[in-house]
Protein backbone atom coordinates (compact mmCIF):
# COMPACT_ATOMS: atom_id res chain seq x y z
CA UNK A 1 0.00 0.00 0.00
CA UNK A 2 1.45 3.37 -1.04
CA UNK A 3 1.23 5.95 1.73
CA UNK A 4 2.19 9.58 1.88
CA UNK A 5 5.49 8.67 3.54
CA UNK A 6 6.37 6.01 0.96
CA UNK A 7 9.84 6.71 -0.43
CA UNK A 8 9.83 7.12 -4.21
CA UNK A 9 13.47 7.94 -4.84
CA UNK A 10 16.29 8.68 -2.37
CA UNK A 11 14.67 10.80 0.37
CA UNK A 12 11.77 11.86 -1.82
CA UNK A 13 8.40 10.67 -0.54
CA UNK A 14 4.97 10.67 -2.15
CA UNK A 15 4.09 13.61 0.11
CA UNK A 16 7.07 15.57 -1.29
CA UNK A 17 5.87 14.85 -4.83
CA UNK A 18 2.33 16.00 -4.00
CA UNK A 19 3.63 19.17 -2.30
CA UNK A 20 5.86 19.85 -5.31
CA UNK A 21 3.01 19.26 -7.79
CA UNK A 22 0.66 21.53 -5.83
CA UNK A 23 3.40 24.19 -5.60
CA UNK A 24 3.95 24.07 -9.38
CA UNK A 25 0.20 24.30 -10.04
CA UNK A 26 -0.05 27.30 -7.70
CA UNK A 27 2.97 28.94 -9.35
CA UNK A 28 1.49 28.44 -12.82
CA UNK A 29 -1.84 29.88 -11.66
CA UNK A 30 -0.07 32.87 -10.08
CA UNK A 31 1.93 33.38 -13.29
CA UNK A 32 -1.28 33.32 -15.32
CA UNK A 33 -3.04 35.77 -13.01
CA UNK A 34 -0.08 38.14 -13.22
CA UNK A 35 -0.06 37.71 -17.03
CA UNK A 36 -3.77 38.62 -17.22
CA UNK A 37 -3.20 41.61 -14.95
CA UNK A 38 -0.23 42.76 -17.06
CA UNK A 39 -2.23 42.39 -20.27
CA UNK A 40 -5.12 44.40 -18.85
CA UNK A 41 -2.86 47.10 -17.47
CA UNK A 42 -0.63 47.50 -20.50
CA UNK A 43 -2.80 46.47 -23.48
CA UNK A 44 -3.47 50.05 -24.56
CA UNK A 45 0.02 51.25 -23.78
CA UNK A 46 2.22 48.79 -25.67
CA UNK A 47 2.33 47.12 -29.05
CA UNK A 48 0.62 43.73 -28.85
CA UNK A 49 3.72 41.87 -29.94
CA UNK A 50 5.94 43.57 -27.36
CA UNK A 51 3.32 43.00 -24.67
CA UNK A 52 3.08 39.28 -25.51
CA UNK A 53 6.85 38.96 -25.23
CA UNK A 54 6.95 40.81 -21.93
CA UNK A 55 4.14 38.67 -20.52
CA UNK A 56 5.86 35.45 -21.60
CA UNK A 57 9.19 36.49 -20.10
CA UNK A 58 7.50 37.44 -16.82
CA UNK A 59 5.59 34.12 -16.76
CA UNK A 60 8.75 32.07 -17.38
CA UNK A 61 10.66 33.97 -14.68
CA UNK A 62 7.84 33.45 -12.15
CA UNK A 63 7.59 29.73 -12.93
CA UNK A 64 11.39 29.23 -12.73
CA UNK A 65 11.63 31.09 -9.43
CA UNK A 66 8.63 29.13 -8.11
CA UNK A 67 10.09 25.78 -9.11
CA UNK A 68 13.41 26.77 -7.55
CA UNK A 69 11.70 27.48 -4.23
CA UNK A 70 9.52 24.36 -4.46
CA UNK A 71 12.49 22.06 -4.97
CA UNK A 72 13.74 22.14 -1.32
CA UNK A 73 10.59 20.26 -0.34
CA UNK A 74 12.36 17.31 -2.00
CA UNK A 75 15.42 17.98 0.08
CA UNK A 76 17.41 17.55 -3.11
CA UNK A 77 20.93 18.71 -3.82
CA UNK A 78 20.35 21.07 -6.74
CA UNK A 79 23.89 20.52 -8.09
CA UNK A 80 23.29 16.79 -8.18
CA UNK A 81 19.93 17.39 -9.79
CA UNK A 82 21.54 19.38 -12.55
CA UNK A 83 23.93 16.52 -13.33
CA UNK A 84 21.12 13.99 -13.29
CA UNK A 85 18.90 16.41 -15.21
CA UNK A 86 21.60 16.86 -17.85
CA UNK A 87 21.92 13.13 -18.36
CA UNK A 88 18.18 12.66 -18.44
CA UNK A 89 17.91 15.60 -20.78
CA UNK A 90 20.40 13.98 -23.15
CA UNK A 91 18.42 10.75 -23.17
CA UNK A 92 15.15 12.58 -23.68
CA UNK A 93 16.71 14.65 -26.45
CA UNK A 94 17.75 11.50 -28.33
CA UNK A 95 14.35 9.99 -27.74
CA UNK A 96 12.53 13.05 -28.97
CA UNK A 97 14.65 14.44 -31.76
CA UNK A 98 11.68 16.03 -33.52
CA UNK A 99 10.73 18.01 -30.43
CA UNK A 100 14.31 19.11 -29.89
CA UNK A 101 14.58 20.04 -33.55
CA UNK A 102 11.40 22.11 -33.25
CA UNK A 103 12.71 23.69 -30.06
CA UNK A 104 16.03 24.60 -31.71
CA UNK A 105 14.20 25.97 -34.75
CA UNK A 106 11.95 27.97 -32.44
CA UNK A 107 14.94 29.54 -30.73
CA UNK A 108 16.54 30.41 -34.08
CA UNK A 109 13.22 31.85 -35.29
CA UNK A 110 13.06 34.07 -32.22
CA UNK A 111 16.61 35.26 -32.89
CA UNK A 112 16.30 35.70 -36.68
CA UNK A 113 12.70 36.98 -36.49
CA UNK A 114 11.67 36.43 -40.11
CA UNK A 115 8.05 36.72 -38.96
CA UNK A 116 6.35 38.61 -36.17
CA UNK A 117 2.91 38.25 -34.59
CA UNK A 118 0.37 39.96 -36.84
CA UNK A 119 2.46 39.62 -40.01
CA UNK A 120 0.78 38.46 -43.20
CA UNK A 121 2.88 35.57 -44.42
CA UNK A 122 3.11 32.45 -46.56
CA UNK A 123 5.00 29.49 -45.10
CA UNK A 124 5.18 26.62 -47.57
CA UNK A 125 1.58 26.07 -48.66
CA UNK A 126 0.02 28.01 -45.78
CA UNK A 127 -0.92 31.67 -46.14
CA UNK A 128 -2.41 33.86 -43.43
CA UNK A 129 -1.64 35.97 -40.40
CA UNK A 130 0.78 34.92 -37.66
CA UNK A 131 -1.25 34.51 -34.47
CA UNK A 132 1.33 33.15 -32.06
CA UNK A 133 4.98 32.10 -32.10
CA UNK A 134 5.53 29.38 -29.54
CA UNK A 135 8.80 27.72 -28.76
CA UNK A 136 7.77 24.52 -30.60
CA UNK A 137 5.29 25.77 -33.17
CA UNK A 138 3.94 28.79 -34.99
CA UNK A 139 0.20 29.39 -35.15
CA UNK A 140 -1.17 30.87 -38.36
CA UNK A 141 -4.73 32.01 -38.95
CA UNK A 142 -5.44 31.55 -42.64
CA UNK A 143 -7.44 34.08 -44.64
CA UNK A 144 -10.41 31.74 -44.26
CA UNK A 145 -10.07 31.99 -40.47
CA UNK A 146 -8.71 28.48 -40.06
CA UNK A 147 -6.25 27.67 -37.24
CA UNK A 148 -3.04 26.09 -38.55
CA UNK A 149 -0.24 24.92 -36.28
CA UNK A 150 3.07 24.65 -38.08
CA UNK A 151 5.98 22.94 -36.29
CA UNK A 152 8.88 25.37 -36.00
CA UNK A 153 11.22 22.97 -37.79
CA UNK A 154 8.97 23.25 -40.84
CA UNK A 155 8.79 27.01 -40.50
CA UNK A 156 12.55 27.23 -40.25
CA UNK A 157 13.28 25.04 -43.25
CA UNK A 158 10.44 26.32 -45.48
CA UNK A 159 10.50 29.27 -47.79
CA UNK A 160 8.90 32.14 -45.88
CA UNK A 161 7.24 35.02 -47.69
CA UNK A 162 6.50 37.91 -45.36
CA UNK A 163 4.19 40.33 -47.14
CA UNK A 164 4.57 43.08 -44.55
CA UNK A 165 8.22 42.80 -43.46
CA UNK A 166 9.06 45.96 -45.39
CA UNK A 167 7.21 49.17 -44.53
CA UNK A 168 5.99 49.66 -48.10
CA UNK A 169 5.14 47.36 -50.98
CA UNK A 170 4.28 47.73 -54.62
CA UNK A 171 1.35 46.34 -56.52
CA UNK A 172 0.22 46.79 -60.09
CA UNK A 173 -2.83 46.94 -62.30
CA UNK A 174 -3.16 46.26 -66.00
CA UNK A 175 -5.84 48.46 -67.49
CA UNK A 176 -6.88 48.03 -71.12
CA UNK A 177 -8.51 50.89 -73.04
CA UNK A 178 -9.90 51.02 -76.56
CA UNK A 179 -7.75 52.04 -79.55
CA UNK A 180 -10.21 54.84 -80.25
CA UNK A 181 -9.81 56.35 -76.75
CA UNK A 182 -7.49 59.17 -75.72
CA UNK A 183 -4.55 57.42 -74.04
CA UNK A 184 -3.14 60.66 -72.63
CA UNK A 185 -6.46 61.50 -70.99
CA UNK A 186 -6.75 57.99 -69.50
CA UNK A 187 -3.24 58.29 -68.00
CA UNK A 188 -4.13 61.73 -66.64
CA UNK A 189 -7.37 60.48 -65.02
CA UNK A 190 -5.59 57.58 -63.32
CA UNK A 191 -2.71 59.82 -62.15
CA UNK A 192 -5.18 62.26 -60.57
CA UNK A 193 -6.87 59.41 -58.69
CA UNK A 194 -3.53 58.18 -57.38
CA UNK A 195 -2.52 61.68 -56.33
CA UNK A 196 -5.75 62.13 -54.37
CA UNK A 197 -5.54 58.84 -52.50
CA UNK A 198 -3.84 59.31 -49.11
CA UNK A 199 -2.18 55.89 -49.04
CA UNK A 200 -0.75 55.90 -52.55
CA UNK A 201 2.74 56.91 -51.49
CA UNK A 202 4.16 60.20 -52.71
CA UNK A 203 7.59 58.59 -52.68
CA UNK A 204 8.27 56.14 -54.33
CA UNK A 205 5.96 57.81 -56.80
CA UNK A 206 3.34 55.79 -58.65
CA UNK A 207 3.76 55.34 -62.39
CA UNK A 208 1.23 54.96 -65.17
CA UNK A 209 2.40 54.13 -68.70
CA UNK A 210 1.45 52.40 -71.94
CA UNK A 211 3.00 48.98 -71.62
CA UNK A 212 1.59 47.12 -74.63
CA UNK A 213 -0.43 47.57 -77.78
CA UNK A 214 -2.64 44.52 -77.32
CA UNK A 215 -4.95 42.60 -79.65
CA UNK A 216 -8.04 44.26 -78.26
CA UNK A 217 -6.83 47.50 -76.76
CA UNK A 218 -4.01 49.65 -75.45
CA UNK A 219 -2.59 48.18 -72.24
CA UNK A 220 -1.78 50.62 -69.44
CA UNK A 221 0.34 49.47 -66.51
CA UNK A 222 -0.10 51.17 -63.15
CA UNK A 223 2.56 50.72 -60.45
CA UNK A 224 1.59 51.82 -56.95
CA UNK A 225 3.50 51.81 -53.66
CA UNK A 226 1.42 51.70 -50.49
CA UNK A 227 2.12 51.14 -46.77
CA UNK A 228 2.32 47.36 -46.26
CA UNK A 229 -0.25 47.54 -43.46
CA UNK A 230 -2.98 48.82 -45.76
CA UNK A 231 -1.89 47.77 -49.26
CA UNK A 232 -4.67 45.24 -49.76
CA UNK A 233 -7.47 47.68 -48.93
CA UNK A 234 -5.83 50.31 -51.15
CA UNK A 235 -5.56 47.77 -53.97
CA UNK A 236 -9.19 46.71 -53.82
CA UNK A 237 -10.48 50.26 -53.40
CA UNK A 238 -8.46 51.85 -56.19
CA UNK A 239 -9.26 49.38 -58.94
CA UNK A 240 -12.95 50.14 -58.61
CA UNK A 241 -12.25 53.87 -58.54
CA UNK A 242 -10.14 53.63 -61.71
CA UNK A 243 -12.95 51.79 -63.48
CA UNK A 244 -15.52 54.37 -62.36
CA UNK A 245 -13.28 57.32 -63.30
CA UNK A 246 -12.63 55.90 -66.79
CA UNK A 247 -16.37 55.28 -67.21
CA UNK A 248 -17.09 58.90 -66.28
CA UNK A 249 -14.64 60.06 -68.93
CA UNK A 250 -16.27 57.80 -71.52
CA UNK A 251 -13.08 55.76 -71.84
CA UNK A 252 -13.96 52.22 -72.79
CA UNK A 253 -12.38 49.10 -71.30
CA UNK A 254 -12.67 46.87 -74.40
CA UNK A 255 -13.84 43.27 -74.66
CA UNK A 256 -11.55 40.88 -76.54
CA UNK A 257 -12.26 41.53 -80.19
CA UNK A 258 -11.31 40.24 -83.64
CA UNK A 259 -11.91 41.86 -87.02
CA UNK A 260 -13.47 39.34 -89.42
CA UNK A 261 -13.61 40.11 -93.15
CA UNK A 262 -16.18 38.04 -95.08
CA UNK A 263 -15.06 36.88 -98.56
CA UNK A 264 -18.54 37.52 -100.01
CA UNK A 265 -18.58 41.10 -98.75
CA UNK A 266 -15.08 41.65 -100.13
CA UNK A 267 -16.12 40.42 -103.60
CA UNK A 268 -18.96 42.91 -103.59
CA UNK A 269 -16.79 45.86 -102.66
CA UNK A 270 -13.74 45.08 -104.87
CA UNK A 271 -13.49 45.21 -108.75
CA UNK A 272 -14.23 41.90 -110.56
CA UNK A 273 -10.60 41.09 -111.46
CA UNK A 274 -9.43 41.70 -107.88
CA UNK A 275 -12.10 39.33 -106.47
CA UNK A 276 -11.09 36.56 -108.90
CA UNK A 277 -7.46 36.93 -107.92
CA UNK A 278 -8.35 36.57 -104.20
CA UNK A 279 -10.56 33.59 -104.99
CA UNK A 280 -7.67 31.87 -106.80
CA UNK A 281 -5.32 32.33 -103.82
Amino acid at each position, binding site marked *: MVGLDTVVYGDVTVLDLIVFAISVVIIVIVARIIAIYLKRA*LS*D*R*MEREELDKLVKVVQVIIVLIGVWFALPSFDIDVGQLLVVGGTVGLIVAFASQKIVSNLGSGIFLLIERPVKIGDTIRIGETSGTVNQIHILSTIVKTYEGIYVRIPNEEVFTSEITNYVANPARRFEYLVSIGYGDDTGRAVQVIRKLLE*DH*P*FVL*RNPAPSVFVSELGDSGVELTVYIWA*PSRVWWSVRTELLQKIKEALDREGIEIPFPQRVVTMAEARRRTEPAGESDRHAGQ
Partner: protein
Amino acid sequence: MFGESDYSFTYDSEEVSIRIDPSDGFYQYVRKSGTEAITKVISGGSRKIVVNPVEPVNLPREVTRFLEIHFTPVAIEPDSGETVYVTFPVEIGIFLESKGDFDVLDIFTLSRPKYSLYGPPEEGVITRYHKSAVSGTIPKLDRLKEGVIALSITNASRNWVEVSRVVFDCSSFFLYYGDIVSVVARMNILSRDIADVRSEDRPLGEGMVPSILVNKARKTLIPDKIPFTMEFGVGD
Protein backbone atom coordinates in the same frame (compact mmCIF):
# COMPACT_ATOMS: atom_id res chain seq x y z
CA MET B 1 -12.95 76.01 -31.52
CA PHE B 2 -9.97 74.97 -29.40
CA GLY B 3 -10.09 74.67 -25.62
CA GLU B 4 -12.15 73.13 -22.83
CA SER B 5 -15.92 73.11 -22.99
CA ASP B 6 -18.99 71.36 -21.65
CA TYR B 7 -21.50 69.41 -23.71
CA SER B 8 -23.10 72.61 -24.96
CA PHE B 9 -20.17 72.82 -27.40
CA THR B 10 -21.18 73.33 -31.01
CA TYR B 11 -19.20 74.30 -34.06
CA ASP B 12 -20.52 75.08 -37.50
CA SER B 13 -18.62 76.05 -40.62
CA GLU B 14 -18.83 75.27 -44.31
CA GLU B 15 -16.47 72.35 -43.85
CA VAL B 16 -17.49 70.82 -40.55
CA SER B 17 -20.33 70.85 -38.06
CA ILE B 18 -20.09 69.40 -34.55
CA ARG B 19 -22.73 69.16 -31.87
CA ILE B 20 -23.56 67.18 -28.73
CA ASP B 21 -27.26 66.67 -28.05
CA PRO B 22 -29.08 64.95 -25.17
CA SER B 23 -30.52 61.67 -26.41
CA ASP B 24 -32.49 59.08 -24.50
CA GLY B 25 -30.75 59.57 -21.16
CA PHE B 26 -27.34 59.83 -22.81
CA TYR B 27 -25.68 62.37 -25.08
CA GLN B 28 -25.12 62.01 -28.78
CA TYR B 29 -21.99 63.39 -30.42
CA VAL B 30 -22.45 64.14 -34.12
CA ARG B 31 -19.81 65.41 -36.54
CA LYS B 32 -20.42 66.04 -40.21
CA SER B 33 -17.61 66.99 -42.54
CA GLY B 34 -17.91 66.58 -46.28
CA THR B 35 -19.53 63.23 -46.95
CA GLU B 36 -18.38 61.84 -43.61
CA ALA B 37 -20.75 61.70 -40.64
CA ILE B 38 -19.76 60.35 -37.22
CA THR B 39 -22.24 59.61 -34.46
CA LYS B 40 -21.27 58.43 -30.99
CA VAL B 41 -23.22 58.00 -27.78
CA ILE B 42 -21.50 59.33 -24.67
CA SER B 43 -22.43 59.10 -21.01
CA GLY B 44 -23.31 62.09 -18.85
CA GLY B 45 -20.25 61.90 -16.57
CA SER B 46 -18.34 65.11 -16.01
CA ARG B 47 -19.68 66.54 -19.29
CA LYS B 48 -16.33 68.06 -20.12
CA ILE B 49 -14.63 67.93 -23.48
CA VAL B 50 -11.34 69.27 -24.76
CA VAL B 51 -10.84 70.21 -28.42
CA ASN B 52 -7.29 70.81 -29.59
CA PRO B 53 -4.80 70.03 -32.34
CA VAL B 54 -3.17 66.58 -32.09
CA GLU B 55 -0.29 64.74 -33.75
CA PRO B 56 -1.05 64.82 -37.50
CA VAL B 57 -0.57 61.08 -38.09
CA ASN B 58 -3.95 59.58 -37.22
CA LEU B 59 -6.00 59.95 -40.39
CA PRO B 60 -7.53 58.40 -42.40
CA ARG B 61 -6.08 55.50 -40.44
CA GLU B 62 -3.06 55.25 -38.17
CA VAL B 63 -0.25 53.66 -40.21
CA THR B 64 2.77 55.52 -38.91
CA ARG B 65 4.00 57.88 -36.22
CA PHE B 66 6.28 59.90 -38.48
CA LEU B 67 5.62 63.29 -40.05
CA GLU B 68 7.73 64.35 -43.04
CA ILE B 69 7.82 67.95 -44.18
CA HIS B 70 9.29 68.91 -47.55
CA PHE B 71 10.23 72.50 -48.09
CA THR B 72 12.21 74.75 -50.41
CA PRO B 73 15.89 73.82 -49.99
CA VAL B 74 17.76 75.89 -47.41
CA ALA B 75 21.57 75.95 -47.68
CA ILE B 76 23.27 76.07 -44.29
CA GLU B 77 26.97 76.78 -43.96
CA PRO B 78 29.23 74.58 -41.80
CA ASP B 79 29.16 75.12 -38.03
CA SER B 80 26.28 77.53 -38.14
CA GLY B 81 22.56 77.61 -37.59
CA GLU B 82 19.36 79.09 -38.91
CA THR B 83 15.79 79.24 -37.68
CA VAL B 84 13.12 78.78 -40.32
CA TYR B 85 9.35 78.51 -40.14
CA VAL B 86 7.62 75.68 -41.96
CA THR B 87 4.03 74.55 -41.85
CA PHE B 88 2.48 71.22 -40.89
CA PRO B 89 -1.03 69.80 -41.33
CA VAL B 90 -3.39 70.03 -38.38
CA GLU B 91 -5.54 67.18 -37.12
CA ILE B 92 -8.11 68.10 -34.50
CA GLY B 93 -8.78 65.82 -31.56
CA ILE B 94 -11.90 65.85 -29.40
CA PHE B 95 -11.36 64.34 -25.96
CA LEU B 96 -13.70 63.43 -23.14
CA GLU B 97 -12.28 64.48 -19.80
CA SER B 98 -12.92 63.16 -16.33
CA LYS B 99 -10.71 63.71 -13.27
CA GLY B 100 -7.67 64.51 -15.37
CA ASP B 101 -8.14 61.39 -17.51
CA PHE B 102 -8.72 61.85 -21.23
CA ASP B 103 -10.31 59.61 -23.83
CA VAL B 104 -10.21 60.22 -27.58
CA LEU B 105 -13.76 60.81 -28.81
CA ASP B 106 -13.00 61.82 -32.37
CA ILE B 107 -10.22 63.03 -34.64
CA PHE B 108 -10.77 64.87 -37.89
CA THR B 109 -8.88 67.08 -40.28
CA LEU B 110 -9.69 69.80 -42.74
CA SER B 111 -6.50 69.16 -44.71
CA ARG B 112 -5.98 66.31 -47.17
CA PRO B 113 -3.75 63.55 -45.83
CA LYS B 114 -1.00 62.10 -47.99
CA TYR B 115 1.60 59.53 -47.04
CA SER B 116 5.11 58.83 -48.25
CA LEU B 117 8.15 56.72 -47.52
CA TYR B 118 11.32 58.15 -46.01
CA GLY B 119 14.23 55.91 -46.92
CA PRO B 120 14.32 52.73 -48.99
CA PRO B 121 11.31 50.36 -49.03
CA GLU B 122 13.13 47.69 -47.02
CA GLU B 123 14.31 49.84 -44.09
CA GLY B 124 12.67 53.25 -44.36
CA VAL B 125 9.63 54.51 -42.49
CA ILE B 126 6.15 55.44 -43.68
CA THR B 127 5.55 59.14 -43.13
CA ARG B 128 2.64 61.55 -43.24
CA TYR B 129 3.76 63.85 -46.06
CA HIS B 130 3.36 67.62 -46.11
CA LYS B 131 4.70 70.15 -48.58
CA SER B 132 5.53 73.52 -47.05
CA ALA B 133 6.94 76.87 -47.96
CA VAL B 134 9.85 78.22 -45.90
CA SER B 135 9.76 81.62 -44.28
CA GLY B 136 11.90 83.67 -41.95
CA THR B 137 8.91 84.93 -39.98
CA ILE B 138 5.81 83.25 -38.58
CA PRO B 139 3.41 82.88 -41.52
CA LYS B 140 -0.29 83.70 -41.29
CA LEU B 141 -2.24 80.46 -41.35
CA ASP B 142 -5.72 79.06 -40.80
CA ARG B 143 -5.08 77.33 -37.45
CA LEU B 144 -7.74 74.72 -38.20
CA LYS B 145 -5.79 73.57 -41.24
CA GLU B 146 -2.12 74.30 -40.71
CA GLY B 147 0.28 74.87 -37.86
CA VAL B 148 3.75 76.36 -37.82
CA ILE B 149 7.02 74.77 -36.79
CA ALA B 150 9.86 77.00 -35.64
CA LEU B 151 12.72 74.81 -36.77
CA SER B 152 16.20 75.66 -35.51
CA ILE B 153 18.61 73.99 -37.88
CA THR B 154 22.22 73.55 -36.84
CA ASN B 155 24.80 72.29 -39.27
CA ALA B 156 27.41 70.51 -37.18
CA SER B 157 29.15 69.04 -40.23
CA ARG B 158 32.17 70.43 -42.06
CA ASN B 159 30.31 70.97 -45.33
CA TRP B 160 27.57 73.14 -46.67
CA VAL B 161 24.32 71.22 -46.41
CA GLU B 162 21.15 71.79 -48.35
CA VAL B 163 18.14 70.90 -46.21
CA SER B 164 14.77 70.33 -47.81
CA ARG B 165 13.05 67.87 -45.51
CA VAL B 166 12.62 67.09 -41.88
CA VAL B 167 11.07 64.00 -40.29
CA PHE B 168 9.50 64.05 -36.82
CA ASP B 169 8.65 61.12 -34.60
CA CYS B 170 5.22 62.24 -33.42
CA SER B 171 5.28 59.90 -30.44
CA SER B 172 7.40 62.56 -28.74
CA PHE B 173 5.78 65.64 -30.21
CA PHE B 174 4.84 68.81 -28.30
CA LEU B 175 2.05 70.95 -29.69
CA TYR B 176 0.84 74.30 -28.40
CA TYR B 177 -2.09 76.35 -29.51
CA GLY B 178 -3.34 79.90 -29.21
CA ASP B 179 -3.90 82.19 -32.18
CA ILE B 180 -1.82 79.69 -34.11
CA VAL B 181 -0.93 76.04 -33.69
CA SER B 182 2.77 75.68 -33.10
CA VAL B 183 5.69 73.36 -32.53
CA VAL B 184 9.22 74.35 -31.55
CA ALA B 185 11.79 71.93 -32.91
CA ARG B 186 15.49 71.46 -33.30
CA MET B 187 17.33 69.76 -36.15
CA ASN B 188 20.99 68.96 -35.67
CA ILE B 189 22.65 68.02 -38.96
CA LEU B 190 25.60 65.70 -38.55
CA SER B 191 26.18 65.07 -42.27
CA ARG B 192 24.27 65.30 -45.54
CA ASP B 193 22.64 61.98 -44.67
CA ILE B 194 22.20 62.13 -40.92
CA ALA B 195 20.39 64.54 -38.62
CA ASP B 196 18.78 64.39 -35.19
CA VAL B 197 15.33 65.92 -34.92
CA ARG B 198 13.44 66.63 -31.73
CA SER B 199 10.41 68.63 -30.74
CA GLU B 200 10.79 70.81 -27.65
CA ASP B 201 8.26 71.15 -24.85
CA ARG B 202 7.81 74.93 -25.04
CA PRO B 203 5.39 77.31 -26.74
CA LEU B 204 6.30 79.53 -29.65
CA GLY B 205 4.70 82.56 -28.03
CA GLU B 206 3.18 83.75 -24.78
CA GLY B 207 -0.28 82.61 -23.75
CA MET B 208 -0.18 79.41 -25.76
CA VAL B 209 -1.66 76.26 -24.23
CA PRO B 210 -0.18 72.75 -24.50
CA SER B 211 -2.32 70.30 -26.48
CA ILE B 212 -3.65 67.06 -25.09
CA LEU B 213 -2.11 64.55 -27.49
CA VAL B 214 -3.48 61.20 -28.60
CA ASN B 215 -0.38 59.39 -27.34
CA LYS B 216 -0.71 60.94 -23.90
CA ALA B 217 -4.46 60.24 -23.76
CA ARG B 218 -3.80 56.59 -24.61
CA LYS B 219 -1.02 56.56 -22.02
CA THR B 220 1.33 54.91 -24.50
CA LEU B 221 4.60 54.02 -22.80
CA ILE B 222 7.07 56.22 -24.66
CA PRO B 223 10.09 57.81 -23.03
CA ASP B 224 10.06 61.59 -23.34
CA LYS B 225 12.22 63.63 -25.70
CA ILE B 226 13.79 60.93 -27.85
CA PRO B 227 15.36 62.55 -30.92
CA PHE B 228 14.56 60.89 -34.21
CA THR B 229 17.63 60.22 -36.32
CA MET B 230 17.13 60.88 -40.01
CA GLU B 231 19.48 58.40 -41.64
CA PHE B 232 18.44 58.65 -45.24
CA GLY B 233 19.32 62.22 -46.07
CA VAL B 234 18.07 65.72 -45.33
CA GLY B 235 17.72 66.81 -48.95
CA ASP B 236 15.85 65.58 -52.00
